[in-house]
């Protein structure tokens, strides 16, 4: 079930939903919450290795080494080059209730520039949201840190879940974190199968 503005506001005001910082009440839409581009970035670049190895191979170069850290202050700008992947975070730190999950997408104005994000955030999640921005446009795009580029839609589950029950690779993060695909335990089993 989608939550309406009144329901989202009620969660926020009761403290069940944390949004820090909330710079403007105008971030609450009729059924959405606008989220802003954060200050820290991991920008992909081509290094010595010809490819990113996400097979779980323990000898593989860490995925984080394919990204370079950069930082901006709120109000400053950053370029997104065509087809380059940039990891960033939301400016807001969120904590969701245990029975609410959110669906994230780029706001229409930014989708039209060729920036597409579609993601789900689990109930009970706490932290800034990691965003994987890839500029699908053939032109570089310059965007401003702090701009509301995303919107979240809220859904209520029929019962509560516990976010901390399972593996929580990205809990309480405040900066973008490179993929931890290689720490998926299943890859060890799959690797053994592959060797045979």
């Amino acid at each position: 079930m989608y939550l309406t503005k009144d329901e989202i506001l009620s969660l926020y005001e009761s403290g069940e939903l944390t949004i820090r910082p909330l710079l403007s009440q105008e971030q609450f839409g009729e059924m959405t919450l606008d989220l802003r581009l954060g200050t820290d970035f991991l920008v992909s670049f081509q290094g010595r290795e010809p490819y990113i190895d996400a097979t779980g191979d323990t000898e593989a170069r860490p995925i984080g080494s394919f990204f370079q850290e950069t930082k901006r202050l709120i109000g400053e700008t950053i370029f997104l080059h065509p087809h380059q992947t940039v990891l960033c975070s939301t400016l807001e730190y969120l904590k969701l209730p245990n029975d609410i999950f959110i669906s994230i997408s780029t706001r229409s104005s930014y989708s039209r520039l060729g920036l597409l994000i579609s993601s789900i955030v689990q109930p009970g999640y706490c932290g800034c949201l990691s965003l994987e921005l890839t500029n699908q446009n053939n032109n570089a795009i310059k965007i401003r840190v702090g701009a509301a580029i995303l919107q979240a839609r809220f859904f209520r589950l029929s019962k509560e879940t516990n976010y901390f029950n399972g593996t929580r690779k990205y809990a309480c993060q405040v900066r973008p974190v490179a993929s931890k695909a290689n720490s998926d335990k299943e890859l060890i089993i799959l690797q053994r199968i592959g060797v045979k």
Partner: protein
Amino acid sequence: MSPELVTLHLSQLQKSIEKSKTNKYADSRKRDYHDNILKLFDELNKIDFLGFSADSLVLTKKIIDFCFVSVEFLDNSTLVNIPHEIVYCLEKALNEWDDTNQYIIVTSLHNDLNCFSFNTLLSLNETYYDIIKAVFSISFNHRLIQINLPKYLSQDYLANVVLYHELGHFVDLRYQITEKLSTALNLSETERSYYGEFFSDIFASQYIGEASNYYLDYIAYNDPDSLSHPSTNSRIEIVHKFLSGKSDKILDDLKDATPKSTGKELRNRRNVISDADFRNFIPTILNSEEELHSIFEVGWSLWQGKISEFEVKNITKYEKYQILNNLIEKSISNYMILEKWNSYVPY
């Protein structure tokens, strides 16, 4: 020293100048300082050292060294390199003691876990700035407060409370607090050093309370008196006394001398805040500078104790370390964001 060696030194500087030319700084004062270094380098480049006397060559080498150190610290103080959030807190503390806008805190990151230190060269040694102005007509509007810290702890908000102590050294030397006290009390060189360390410890604890002791007790555990530093136990004890309002000869000397030199008192400058938000896995809303400084005490007290809310969720020790660091960082960074936002919002 030969002209060729000075020329070699200048050529080595050129490499570092070229590399740092396009540095981006969040603080325009650093750009201003950097531009002056570039001008100075251009002036040095015009000189033919062949006719120089030995003294002039030595002086030129020192000026080149001055440029090297400046570039090193500026390079390490770009937005991506500097531990931005904690330096912001230090700047708030600095502004209470010096509101001239003349001093810029810069950091250099080293591969040495125990390298926390403060150097006076670019902040308090006016000789270089005077010579550069007289010889090259270049005036620096700002001075750099050089603080060294370990590269691998640059985003560690528990360890970096030590930086408040290093800032204390700057304030002490800037106002010659313990130097004047040393003259008045006829202290030996070692006693003067001890007073300097005690002052810096107390200075730090004004802002971060007991947190200043926690890390000290780890990196300098049970260190006895040395020529430069008093024993760790005596340093911890004097901070305890300061925070609990007890009397002590050295503490009272420092509390008496500080206002005479600075016009400011050594006093509690923090506002203890609740740890409830951190226990609930969310950053704290900080409402004042006093609360801003207190965030480190919250982090330290939680690190040292058991957090039942974390244990229920099976948070590992490493995750606890990461979460506390992240929550401290985000609490500070939200304060910075809101400060900027609120100063520009048109209502």
